């Protein structure tokens, strides 16, 4: 039985990663830490770079919240030092242009420079080869190139803050004509630089996606069938399909917009545009909604790029700390795949009130409503995983439980916007902001914190400080909810987003106090993250030395020493069973059994 299973799998396995010939580990600093082909180094480069950008993106959000709570009041300290520079006027208060810049750049940095590189570049690179029992990814040089393209993309992005009129200020979505005509938009060269940055970051994302697809398809260890892949690797595989098929659309759109801005074409400019009372140059024949279609054809799948890998991370953590197999492995994979399938045909739900044909709105409502089904199936299966478990509450598990809990709220609030009539009212209000922060922060970033604490031993050979991690979890959970839950109330009251101040509107008058409350919650949320920053760097050097398998996990990375050696596996591992055989009969006295533990004579390995 076991023989059969093994021979029935990937024939390419003996060639896992590098075709069997090994180079010695480079000794020079440059080849070891900078231009490294080692997937683990590339993963760590992604991880640390994107965490640094998270501080930048978070800092922008803090300034943003100041302006909303205290409109046109000078920002304490920072505003005083930076009078007349960046986002600040001569009195140290944030200007309306500066506010738009903060909003656009917060979104762009968080999506293109934090979350995607963090969960795909960081976790994907580090874990995929370990999970499938390979020595490296299929194309190690391409992998290094992908990281350095991402790093290169950050140059124009950072540069844009320093050019005349500042960085992009037309929303992270960059809707033309606002982002297109010099006279209409508050930014000039900065926006073009940011578009170039997006272009490069997208290119890096495509390279990563191709690499992961090939790696997972070709480099699985003997016995690692598709049905035995850890769910995180499944999620990364499906995410990689998204990256390869959707990101080129972003490149196309960004190129067209760059052409419009630099070479004065008019892809997105209709005839007869008048800006500031004068006819706009080079307008004619274009169509503003074209950008929205192209952009959301990429950016809606991108939303799933932002969440699918962390669904995988959550699955790994939940099963390990429940000491129980994942409930409904097949249903989990099928729901991931159907999220991908449906994910390509829901982009129009961002455009219900855009002027798109209302019949199309109807069609997009149908697909959008039904994408809630696979997401629901995942939630129910996570709950099924917990049901009957023997749950341990280490910090990764606390974050994973936070992930499910916040994902439920974010998922449910999405149903309102999927319903076109309700969306007429809720569109472009704080309801949307609340919704996607519950998904991208509440779910994704929670899973990221959980994942970092979970795999820290493999990343750095040490454990994170557990009490500090738990304190960080508690404060983040509390202040996250205090920050973002009240935004549902703002949205319900009709408070528009991207508003430098709401003081002009009488119908928003009563919400001023709530906005101050949210701002202070956001500040405490921001401060709580410093615990993580300290814990991360302190544990990296002074944390408790980690054992091989501190959490008693089953997947292949837990058979390796901590930290993982160069080329990962001395001997290519052979896989005998599924990744989640916790508490099975075969495990005997302990409640776990590694995927590569040979079967006990006389006992059939579980067929999963």
């Amino acid at each position, binding site marked *: 039985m076991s023989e059969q299973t093994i021979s029935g799998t990937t024939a390419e396995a003996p060639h896992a990663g590098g075709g069997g010939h090994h180079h010695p580990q480079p000794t020079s600093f440059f080849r070891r830490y900078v231009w490294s082909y080692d997937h683990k180094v590339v993963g760590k480069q992604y991880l640390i770079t994107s965490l640094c950008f998270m501080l930048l993106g978070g800092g922008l959000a803090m300034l943003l919240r100041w302006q909303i*709570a205290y409109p046109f009041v000078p920002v304490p300290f920072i505003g005083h030092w930076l009078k007349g520079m960046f986002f600040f006027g001569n009195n140290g208060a944030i200007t309306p242009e500066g506010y*738009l810049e903060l909003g656009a750049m917060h979104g762009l940095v968080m999506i293109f420079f934090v979350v995607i590189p963090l969960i795909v570049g960081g976790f994907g690179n580090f874990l995929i080869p370990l999970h499938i029992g390979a020595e490296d990814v299929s194309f190690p040089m391409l992998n290094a190139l992908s990281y350095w393209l991402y790093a290169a993309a950050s140059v124009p992005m950072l540069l844009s803050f320093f050019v005349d009129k500042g960085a992009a200020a037309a*929303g992270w979505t960059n*809707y*033309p004509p*606002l982002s297109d005509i010099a006279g*209409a938009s*508050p930014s000039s060269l900065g926006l073009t630089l940011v578009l170039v940055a997006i272009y490069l970051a997208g290119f890096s994302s495509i390279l990563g996606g191709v690499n992961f697809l090939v790696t997972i398809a070709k480099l699985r260890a003997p016995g690692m069938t598709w049905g035995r892949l850890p769910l995180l690797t499944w999620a990364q595989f499906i995410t990689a399909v998204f990256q390869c098929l959707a990101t080129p659309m972003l490149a196309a759109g960004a190129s067209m917009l760059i052409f419009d801005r630099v070479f004065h074409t008019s892809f997105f400019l*209709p*005839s007869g*545009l*008048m*800006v500031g009372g004068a006819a706009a140059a080079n307008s004619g024949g274009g*169509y*503003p909604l074209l950008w929205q279609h192209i952009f959301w054809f990429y950016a809606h799948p991108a939303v799933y790029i932002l969440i699918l890998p962390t669904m995988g991370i959550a699955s790994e953590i939940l099963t390990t700390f429940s000491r*129980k197999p*994942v*409930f*409904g492995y*097949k*249903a989990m994979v099928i729901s991931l795949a159907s999220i991908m399938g449906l994910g390509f045909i829901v982009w129009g739900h961002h455009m219900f*009130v*855009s*002027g798109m044909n209302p019949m199309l709105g*109807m069609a997009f*409502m*149908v697909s959008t*409503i039904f994408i*809630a*089904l696979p997401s*629901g*199936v995942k*939630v129910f299966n996570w*709950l*099924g995983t917990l*049901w*009957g*478990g*023997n749950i341990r*509450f280490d910090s990764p598990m606390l974050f994973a439980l936070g992930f499910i809990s916040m994902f439920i709220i974010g998922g449910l609030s999405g*149903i309102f916007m999927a319903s*076109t009539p*309700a969306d007429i009212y809720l569109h*472009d*209000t704080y309801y949307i902001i609340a919704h996607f922060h519950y998904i991208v922060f509440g779910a994704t970033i929670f899973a990221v914190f959980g994942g970092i604490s979970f795999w820290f031993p493999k990343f750095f050979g040490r454990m994170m400080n557990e009490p500090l991690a738990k304190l960080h979890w508690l404060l983040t959970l509390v202040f996250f909810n205090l920050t973002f839950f009240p935004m549902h109330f703002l949205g*319900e*009251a*009709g408070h*528009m987003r991207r*508003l*430098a101040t709401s003081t*002009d*509107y*009488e*119908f928003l*008058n009563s919400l*001023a*106090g709530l906005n101050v409350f949210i701002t202070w919650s956001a500040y405490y949320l921001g401060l709580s993250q410093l615990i993580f920053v300290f814990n991360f760097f302190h544990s990296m050097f002074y944390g408790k030395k980690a054992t091989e398998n501190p959490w008693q996990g089953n997947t292949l990375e837990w058979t390796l020493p901590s930290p993982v050696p160069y080329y990962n596996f001395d001997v290519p591992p052979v896989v005998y069973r599924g990744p989640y055989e*916790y*508490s099975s009969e075969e495990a005997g006295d302990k409640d776990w059994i590694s995927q590569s533990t040979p079967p006990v004579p006389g006992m059939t390995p579980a067929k999963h």
Partner: protein
Amino acid sequence: MSKRFLRFCAASVFALLPGLAGAEGFGFLPPVCTQSGRQIDHLYLTIFGIVVALFVLTEGTLLFCVFFFRQRKGRKAWSMHGNNVAEVVWTIIPALILGYILYLSSSLWTKLRIDEPSEKSNLVVECLAEQFDWNFRYPGPDGVFGTPDDVMTVNELHIPVDRTVILKISSKDVIHSFFFPYARVKQDAVPGLLTKVWFDVDRMGVWNLATQKPELVTLDQYNGMKVALDGFDLKDPVVNPDGLRDYSYAPSAGIKQVPVELDGKITQLPPDQAAYVAHPYEIACAQLCGPGHFAMEGHVVVQTQADFDNWLKTAPDLGPTFRQKWNEAWDSQHPEFNKPNP
């Protein structure tokens, strides 16, 4: 399960009932002045009820698991790989619930955006957005747009109460979004594209001078109250320490008589005899349109049919330059839209 827990569940369900019944003024929802707006609120609250039930179910299960299946010495987790019956059940039941939401939403969407009312029998107003103003145009007495008798306004939309208004929206420069919160209407204004919304406002906005608070009243109620149409100013709001602002109306300086409408007749009375002031609704821009986006505010003045007709006749002329600029922008983008109304 303890009695207290059951009592808590029962209390939460009862707290939701007014929401399910579609009570006005639920939560943070602002007042509503159209029937279609009420239907949107009702749909919103129906979804809210369903969502809260799903929330309690799932988060409750989560807390239950965390509590009852926490690690204890000598216990082993169940080795269970799944259950196909469960998978089918929790796919089909949510599918039915979502199908129900879809049914409600699609029929309302059809009414709001697909079944267009006839332009012949209803009032048509054109709206041309620009950075950072709302321009409106009425066809004037001849019923044809683009003729010299057109009536134009900036940032002020006048409409008669209890009548369907069709708004044709476009933009001169960038994308804006016409947002009329009390009517629950939102529609992007896209340059090069003509979008259309329709609504019938059945509540008029007035300001109660005794309480210094806004109120929404029906035409019948309006006819029975002494409403000053002019002669009062909205004072600069007083900002409280907590950031909230107190608005108040006061008679304009030096004014002795104000026009007060009662039972459709206008009489001149001393300002202290007016009980209410006509108080327009707000419209906002909901799509980022540039640095002045936050200040792109307009107003909707809802009038009785007689007042509206009267206003159309006496509305100030904004001059030939304004008219020409409008025509240039509108015609160059929409030559086909400017055909006379049949």
